[in-house]
């Protein structure tokens, strides 16, 4: 289990990087507006970053494939249908909890 010193460093590093990304662009707005590659990256990165993060969260699951597969299908279907972020996450997670706790208990 991580200790307090490690957790404090993680919070400091994550907060510093995040704040820099949010604050620094205001100091260089002119070159940012002139640049074409920065807006291109900012617009093109999210879909791929999210795809990689989905795979990253699933890296430990191979032996419990069924609940995860069904829950992913349910989350995608809910989101395509209702387009409600909170509803899709809550619905998909509820289905996964039921499958993992009650159905696929082995």
């Amino acid at each position, binding site marked *: *289990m*991580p200790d307090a010193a490690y*957790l404090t*460093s*993680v*919070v400091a*590093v*994550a*907060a510093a*990087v*995040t*704040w820099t*990304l*949010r*604050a*620094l*662009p*205001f100091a260089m*707005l002119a070159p*940012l*507006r002139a640049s074409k590659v*920065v*807006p*291109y*990256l*900012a*617009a*093109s*990165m*999210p*879909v*791929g*970053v*999210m*795809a*990689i*993060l*989905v*795979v*990253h*969260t*699933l*890296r430990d699951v191979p032996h419990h494939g069924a609940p*995860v597969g069904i*829950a*992913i299908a349910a*989350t*995608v279907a809910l989101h395509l249908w209702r387009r409600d*972020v*909170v509803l*899709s*996450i*809550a619905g*998909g*997670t509820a289905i*996964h*909890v039921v*499958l*993992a*706790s009650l159905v696929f208990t082995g």
Partner: protein
Amino acid sequence: MMSRQVLPVGFAVAAMGLAFGVLVTRSGLPWWWATIFAAVIFAGSLEFLLLGLVTAVAPLGQVAAAAFLVNFRHVFYAMSFPLHRVPGVAAKAYSTFALTDEAYALTARPEAQSWSRARILGLQAFVHVFWAGSVTVGALGGTLIPPEVKGLDFAVTALFLVLGIDAFRDRRDVPAVVVALACALVGHAVFGEQMLVAAMAMFTLFLLARYALRRA
């Protein structure tokens, strides 16, 4: 001051905050770390991701790279956020610190360019308090959920899945999705637990190469 646009954002933030708080407790960390993560980092999707990294005691370099890649999109927000309406060094420091996706979305309308400092800081503080407060409530309430309830951590997968679908709706970039998935699988096969940074670096190189080819 709280307009009709702000309250729905508050409810969505609170729902995600409750989920994050529960996951912090379930991961075995003391509940107050949930409050510290939420109040000090104040970047929702990164906090969900960090939970998995800290329980695996990932190196700090990996934490920094993950924070950079997940939050790079914020670089773009400076182009429209009305920071010129927020005078004062301390006020500007807080306003940039609290420049979340929600703050960006709420100020993306043209009329926000004439909002007062109090209104802009007020809506940012409102999102901040809702986030840190709901995370704390979730972390305290999470201890009441019996251990037989398994699989709550799927909320993190679902979050990234839903954000990915929304990003795909903005730009129907099929090659980017296919290449990103390939990068993730190659990264996992070669680097195992350390796949995240390698996969995102390969994907960024792909985007830069495609950009260079289109300009050529």
